[in-house]
């Protein structure tokens, strides 16, 4: 053992260095995000729960009931019943259910969706999904299109 190491050991230099680092940490800004009050900024391609949307121009439901999303979903969480579109040509989903409890947020359902100009199903930015019963996660078309009432945890 060299003299230098001996001196460093005897006067606890390393320990003092450690204490100095933790002392400096007192004055560094915290990295905690106080979650319900502050929210993280989401990237545009963030994948929250899948949702349905309307045509931005005509406000009509975009989904044409092609069942592609139901077939591609790896978790089988979409189930659709198709019906004639009332007073128009084509079809629409009479009932459209996504079971959020099974959804893995993979986003595969969005890729095959054939509607224009935007896909009928899309990955929304909602991610606060806790609830009191499993029943609550089976989301119907009405809630999917016009917005699932998100629970606000913040005051």
């Amino acid at each position, binding site marked *: 053992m060299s003299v230098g190491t001996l001196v460093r050991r005897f006067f606890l230099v390393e*320990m003092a260095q*450690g*204490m100095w680092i*933790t002392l400096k*940490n*007192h004055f560094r*800004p*915290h*990295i*905690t995000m106080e979650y319900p009050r502050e929210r993280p900024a989401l990237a545009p391609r963030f994948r929250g729960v899948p949702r349905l949307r309307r045509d931005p121009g005509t406000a009509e439901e975009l989904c044409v009931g092609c069942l592609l999303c139901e077939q591609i979903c790896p978790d089988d969480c979409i189930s659709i019943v198709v019906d004639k579109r009332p007073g128009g040509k084509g079809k629409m989903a009479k009932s459209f259910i996504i079971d959020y409890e099974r959804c893995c947020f993979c986003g595969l359902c969005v890729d095959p969706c054939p509607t224009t100009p935007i896909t009928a199903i899309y990955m929304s930015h909602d991610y606060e999904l806790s609830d009191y019963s499993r029943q609550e996660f089976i989301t119907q078309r009405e809630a999917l299109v016009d917005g699932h009432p998100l629970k606000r945890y913040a005051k």
Partner: protein
Amino acid sequence: MDSRLLIENVVIPAIKVAVVLGVMSGAVAYTTLLERKVLGFIQLRLAPRRVGFHGILQPIADGIKLLLKEDIIPDQADRVLFILAPVISIIPAFAALAVIPFAGRSFSVMGYEITPWITDVNIGILYILSISSLGVYGIMLGGWASNSKYPLLGSLRSAAQMVSYEVPLGLAIIGPLLLAGTASMTGIVRAQETQGMWFFFPQIVALFCYFISGVAETNRIPFDLPEAEAELVAGYFTEYSGMKFAFFYLAEYTNMIVVSSIATTLFFGGWLRPFPNVQALSFLNFLDFINPALSGVFWFAFKVFMFLYLYIWIRGTFPRYRYDQLMNLGWKWLLPLSLANVVVTAFILALRHG
């Protein structure tokens, strides 16, 4: 019996005990908050902030939570000892506070002279040493009575650790005692006043040994082997919950305060302001205009606070020692060091007076 005698000997001590108990319980509760806050700052976190302004009511919320929790006693546990253990560990912790002088000058209320310490026995420091070493029984009994392997291992470790570190702790205390020439807690502080220096200057080695042994005695990180979370779940209080758990917790923090108070009294001049004999600095006793005892209490509390902060700072910095490293440090380093300190101090004193 004369009513004045009755008040002086029964009522006033009872009130003082009540005040010390109350203030200390509050101090212990807020030490836990301080610990969480400081650890938070060290780890770049925010620490409790939800209950009250910046978490100021968090200890109260914790207390209520612990009171309302289910109190589990394991089936195979020794019921009597299991219930008794937390009590055994908390009573010595609080009893040690009886001889700690919180301020120097007594004050009078309604014609009665009140001293700012509960009692001042002439063997104060010995009393503290003997009382506080009883605390280990609580830990050992708690670990044994749980009838579970982790608590038992934790309490065995604790026993070994306490016994090992009691030795350098006791030897480190001898240095200041030699300088002061008395074992009374107030006498030690008064000796520092007459000699015009805190004993921390000539006894820095003793302070070093004392403080490290004190950290080990209170089972704090980096010497928290008896409750090493990673190895022993929670050590000796694994099986405890609710209020009994809180008692162990309280005992640990009270012991921290006791160790800090002793360090303050022995090495940092207790209630004295910095440089007690330099008249120019007398403005430091800025609470004197209310009552001289109050500025004594202020300086005492300030120094104890500094020690507690150091405790927590150390906890936030160092990892836990391995068991053999712990024993090495105690027996091979601290014991010879404190022993040498005693010899050198005695030698110098003998030269000076002889």
